[in-house]
């Protein structure tokens, strides 16, 4: 299939579709694309994306199953407590390892005390298809917790991975929805790239309200999100 990149229309691709790349040098292939002997083909269905910066290509889809990738922030539940590490369910095929020492100011004597079932906000420090993913609760740039660690109280909603990415990419409609919601209810949230959003507020009632608004916006387009946002404003 010929894909004309100049046209701004949707570039829907299916697995097996060959991609005609105009500039073949220094190409970077993101998720959903792979290189065979002589061509580049899609391996996932979705919308083909391209940025001329670094000549990057990838396919955007609505996957729900999380595939760990380094540097991403995720929300996980402790399932095992060992002497050296915790094991966390982050929704991927393999459970993730969170070393006891991967916390701010943690050392052999001063270790964090997490229980099975605790909710953790962490960052993926190692991801490889042949290994269990590894997590850390320290931001490597600042060597501080920077918000990573145990999440206390609140509730978790599950959504598509793409919905989470849209928050990170700073989509205007979603951000304004959050801002309006913030004006109405006092709430906090943490977004995991693994399709989990943690929300807490001052009361159960308010948390449920926020959860339902945010969950409800997942399958809406921009104008509908705006409508929801406006209805909040009243």
């Amino acid at each position, binding site marked *: 299939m010929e894909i004309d990149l100049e046209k701004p229309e949707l570039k829907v691709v299916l*697995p*097996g*579709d060959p991609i005609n790349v105009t500039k073949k040098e220094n190409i970077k292939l993101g998720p959903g694309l792979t290189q065979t002997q002589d061509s580049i083909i899609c391996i*996932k269905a979705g919308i083909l994306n391209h940025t001329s910066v670094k000549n990057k290509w990838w396919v955007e889809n609505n996957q*729900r*199953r999380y595939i760990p990738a380094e540097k991403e922030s995720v929300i996980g539940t402790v399932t095992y407590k060992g002497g050296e590490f915790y094991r966390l369910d982050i929704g991927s*095929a393999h459970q993730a390892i969170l070393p006891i020492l991967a916390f701010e100011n943690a050392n052999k004597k001063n270790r964090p005390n997490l229980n099975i079932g605790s909710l953790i906000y962490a960052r993926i420090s190692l991801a490889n298809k042949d290994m269990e993913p590894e997590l850390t609760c320290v931001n490597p740039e600042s060597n501080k917790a920077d918000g990573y660690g145990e999440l206390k109280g609140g509730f978790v909603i599950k959504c598509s991975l793409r919905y989470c990415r849209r928050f990170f990419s700073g989509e205007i409609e979603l951000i304004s929805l959050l801002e309006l919601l913030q004006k109405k209810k006092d709430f906090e949230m943490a977004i995991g790239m693994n399709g989990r959003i943690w929300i807490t507020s001052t009361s159960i009632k308010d948390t449920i309200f926020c959860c339902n608004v945010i969950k409800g916006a997942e399958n809406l387009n921009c104008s509908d999100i705006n409508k929801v946002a406006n209805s909040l404003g009243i």
Partner: protein
Amino acid sequence: MANRADKRSFSTIRPISISQSLLSRDGSASFSFGKTKVLCSVNGPAEVKLRDEKLDKATIDVVVRPLVGTPGTKDKTHEYILRSAFESVIQSGLHPRTQIQIVSQVMMDDGSIIAAAINATTMALIDAGIPMKDIVAAVSCVINKEDQILLDPTAQEMENVKSIHTFAFDKSSSSLLFCESLGLFTDDQYFNCYELCNVAAGRIFEEIRGAITNKLQEYQGYQTEL
């Protein structure tokens, strides 16, 4: 020409309908040829049982569930067919030591059930975002007592026929991935069926592309410039 019970011509497939993301699994889809309908769910890449674990690739597990009765040898054979057809396109090497589970549930059997199951599986795998180097579509046909080839037969049309054929093709080279032909037939009849089903598979690929495009278009609204 149009003397089939449902007023179709011999070489027309029934109306196709496709729905996606119906269930709370990683991927799900239903595929219908007229009344025949198969619902398929996909879970994974997920944790794999130790005894099924493969060190270099994902284990593909297929469960086929009949509408009526407990699963038997027929359903096991369908499982085997689905797994063989999709093992050759799923990029299982990208997810070693995991399991990709495919569950195919017959919702209504009005003929051409294997073909519908294969197409439903393709859709569910796409919905789950399982990496595949190609996609698969299947179509059935029968040759009746009058030596006429009837494409995409209904349950009634599959009775008292000379032979029954099901073909599955891949999209990029439209070459044969699976075939089951039963009954009594000549070489010419076989290759006529092959051609007819190959063309019809092309139609199904278009439908699949259409369904995916429709679904993605719903989100077009929030495509922002990066």
